[in-house]
């Protein structure tokens, strides 16, 4: 019996060495430890062993069985590790530097800038209104106090439609409708697309975006306007700017101002953008003309207010350093797709 155990151990040691897959290990397990396996045979052979040495033999067989089990276990670990290594070694080496195929979308530069500016105004409690692009002559001119014979009404400045309406020449065309809708007091901005009948070149477009705002209340005065514009423009330009007012002239405000800000590019020290003056003209504004308020149904004995305009197209060109205004309406995807959505 003892010899038989020794023999089997030598046999096991020999075959286990050749086992290099899970299948071969399984076969060995069955061959030695299975129901009809060699170790099981030994245990059954124990019955024929004389009783005085049976105990000793039993221990020897058990020791051998444990030996087989533990060697098999080790071998399993070894083979698993080998197989893992083989899988890793045979894996495809992927060139992740190859471009991915997903398309990156883009928003139009105006949309991005308009959103940024709108957020500033919303944070200051303004309502955002949308306006038409075709307006009546009344809304576009009469209601904002543009005289009957004013040059702005000429064919060379304004696109006229065959039904007597016009393509909105300025966002102010929305003033009357908005004053009537909200009444006083109110704080509203109304961005929109405007049209002028002028020849197009690198810095002139017949189709462009403005953003107009109004604040009407009992005591709104010029001092408030200056404070507001400084705060608002610092937010919009993301830079602390100073503002100054100069006399301007617009039919719908009185007094009217041209508002300059300290040049956001050089901080007012002087650079090519501000023509070395330290200021750039950014924002026409003024106290809303009493005639405009009256036409909007506002009681001018109680209320006054200011209005201002921002050139969204100009802001977008400043933000993205766009030199050619025409590219904005060009529909040229390689150009337009450079913006990010956020």
């Amino acid at each position, binding site marked *: 019996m003892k010899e038989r155990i020794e023999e089997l151990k030598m046999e096991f040691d020999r075959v286990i060495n050749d086992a290099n897959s899970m299948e071969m290990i399984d076969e060995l397990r069955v061959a030695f430890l299975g129901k009809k396996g060699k170790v099981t045979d030994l245990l059954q052979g124990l019955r024929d062993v004389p009783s005085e040495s049976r105990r000793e033999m039993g221990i020897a067989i058990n020791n051998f069985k444990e030996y087989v089990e533990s060697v098999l276990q080790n071998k399993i670990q070894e083979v698993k590790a080998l197989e893992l290594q083989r899988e890793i070694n045979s894996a495809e080496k992927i060139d992740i530097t190859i471009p991915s195929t997903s*398309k990156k*979308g883009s928003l139009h530069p105006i949309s991005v800038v308009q959103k940024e500016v709108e957020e500033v105004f*919303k944070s200051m409690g303004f309502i955002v209104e949308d306006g038409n692009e*075709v307006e009546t002559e009344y809304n576009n001119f009469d209601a904002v106090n543009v005289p009957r014979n004013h040059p702005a009404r000429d064919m060379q400045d304004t696109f006229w439609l065959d039904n007597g309406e016009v393509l909105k020449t300025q966002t102010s065309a929305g003033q009357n409708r908005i004053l009537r809708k909200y009444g006083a007091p109110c704080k509203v901005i109304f961005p929109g697309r405007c049209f002028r009948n002028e020849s197009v070149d690198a810095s002139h477009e017949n*189709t462009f975006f403005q953003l107009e705002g109004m604040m009407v209340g009992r005591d709104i005065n010029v001092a408030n306007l200056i*404070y507001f514009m400084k705060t608002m423009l610092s937010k919009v330009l993301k830079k602390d700017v100073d503002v100054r007012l100069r006399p301007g002239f617009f039919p719908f405000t009185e007094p009217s101002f041209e508002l300059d800000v300290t040049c956001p590019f050089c901080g007012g020290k002087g650079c090519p953008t501000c023509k070395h003056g330290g200021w750039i003209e950014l924002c026409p504004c003024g106290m809303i003309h009493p005639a405009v308020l009256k036409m909007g149904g506002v009681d001018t004995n109680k209320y006054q207010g200011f209005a201002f305009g921002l050139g969204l197209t100009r802001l977008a060109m400043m933000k993205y350093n766009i030199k050619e205004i025409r590219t904005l309406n060009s529909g040229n995807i390689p150009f337009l797709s450079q913006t990010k959505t956020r």
Partner: protein
Amino acid sequence: MKISLNWINDFVDIKGIEPAEIVKKFTLATAEVEDFYDVGKDISGIIVAKVLSCEAHPQSNHLHVLKVDTGNGVVDCICGAPNVREGMLVAFAKVGAKVVGGEIKATIIAGYPSNGMCCSKEELGLAEKSDGIWEIVDDVKLGTDIKDVYQIEDTIFEVDNKSLTNRPDLWGHYGIAREIAVLFDKPLKNIVVDDLNYYSQMDKIPVEVYTDSCLRYSCIKIANVSKKESPENVQIRLYRCGMRAINLLADLTNYVMLELGQPMHAFDGNAAQRIEVRDLPRPTEFTTLDGQNRLLDAGTMMICNEKEPMCIAGVMGGLDSEIVENSNSVILEGACFDSSSIRKTAIKLGLRSEASNRYEKSLDPEMTTVAIGRYFYILRYIDKGVRVISGLSDVYNKHYERRTISTTAEFINHYVGVKLSNDFIISTLNALGFKVKNDGFNLQIEVPTYRATKDVTIPVDIVEEVARIYGYDNIKPEPVKEVIEPVEQEREHLMEYDLKLMLAEKFGLNEIHSYIWEDEESNKNLNIETTSYAKILNSIVKENNQIRSEMMPTILKVINENKNLLSNFGVFEIGRVVVGLDEDKNVIEKKHLGLALYNTQKTEKELYFEVKDIVESMAQEFLNKNVSFKLKAVSKNFVHPVNNAQILIDDKCVGYIALLHPLTKNAINKKSAVAVLELDYSDFAKIEEQKVQIKMPSKYQATNLDFNFVMDKNVVYADSIDNLSKIATNLKYEIALKDIYQSADMQGKKSMTYSVKLWSDDHTLSGEEIENFHSAFIQNAKVFGYELKMM
């Protein structure tokens, strides 16, 4: 407009004030100064000298050899000017003197020494171009520096004309001087004029005005003019201000205009016995003084003599009535015309003259006689022998009403947010020429005529006058005091940006902007026919006059223009379209989303499903609603006749998705796929959002059943679901598509596999219930001709 500070100094003493300071204050309180610069400082050492002798150079046919008396010795000089001659006085640049372009050095020219140069006005920066050297006609001691005799040095500032649009009073030096006087608190000198009433006993030139567009017409006749050329200082000022000297009588009209802002016209003294101002009854040919023959419209206002038109009123004179070489008398016109009449004529003729530019601003009619008085005063000073030989004709057709404005310091202070005293307000207004009556509270303010033509009419105009002189920089910024209230933003506007963001970020599309008018040529190329409800009368390109009623034509134009730049892209725009006219004939405007995908690798079917996916995502994300489609319901000539579908939300059509008609698609690129989507965004945004209700999953297990039906290949999936859902059952179920199989040998049939999830919310289904549902489902399908196929 160019302003000479020398000229300003005639009326207000600005010596000692830095020009930069004037420019800054003027810009902040009055109007924008675009640029300012010194002139004349670049030339020096130029003296008056006399040509003692002048001989032709022996080897040259144009050079002369001169001896020049500098008052301090005689020097040699070689001169090439055609007009050089013995005995003339010249502006002489000695060695070391500076002229435009450099310093004068002693040199040898063509073998002769030359120690200086006889200068032309061009070389001294006093003319654009000169034909010869400057002959000095004044009696000046030899050796005198010309800067001691003439106003060579000056500072010029250029005011932005646009910023003067509403200030007719600022179109001459005197008006500007008035502003500067106020800004620096200096007295303004009166303008000196001759009193024309002195000649009231004399016969007048008969004047008749037959048009409302002439507010006032004044004229006088002056004779015995002997001088032909303007004094040098007059010529220099005209040149500095951008005009050219012509002859004395014409130059002075310009001089007075630059001074007072009042245009004048000088007719030859023999040009008219009487004057009529009238509108042309019919189109007429007329030769203007620039020699051009022009066809004038009927209605053009003309100044006429007893026979014929002499001058286009306020715009340009005629050749025949011009001051000529031998004119020794002049009919001098000072007139005021209606601004819009002049503007229309000037634009029509493409003739924006210095005069018409001023008339367009609504000039003060009071100035016509002042200008004539000023003209004669200056002329008499220059040419002592001149005489007025007619009385002053003055037809004053339309007076502006005298304007008085009533306001209070309290109103002004409340409007601006300052605390100004009555005294400050009154003195400021007085300095600007307003007369103020003050009863301690109310201010009765009389507007000066030169501000009363349109500019200052109501109390807030007075606010502006006071505030700008006080200084906008002196107003202390103050936050608004107000009640804080929440505001509600409109959903349509809020959703728009989020929708764009989704299209860009989730679907990788590019947003574009396009014009509101259609491109006729592009539409023709792409075989697109459109409807338009409004046309632009004055479109830039004549054919491109249709306001778009849908987005797709411009979107497809963009696709077509980018097809050679990119092989796979998608674009969209939310833009405005005009979809009809209302009962007042005003347009009905809506916002539409236009979207198109272009791809050279994918199939049309794949792209068609991509646009479907986009519209479903939009409805689900923004409305929490499902979309259904009505197939083959879109009829547009550029849309595929079969593969198109209306988009229905709550059974209402809000747009369509489609492939393109082969004609249009092939025009873009035969080997590409294009799928499009147009959505009425205004309608879409008005659809009420379905509230999200979170459902708890059933506690009872669900069963999945698969059914495989054979049906006609033309059965639309959505219809089959509708039909299968007609099964009568109390159980909960959901039907989903599992597979579609179709092949040529199926004889017009296809096989559809549906997966049905079946459950109940209150109990576990029994085998019998499942059995019953199973057979009821098959039974119902059979009604619609869907035959169960054994698996």
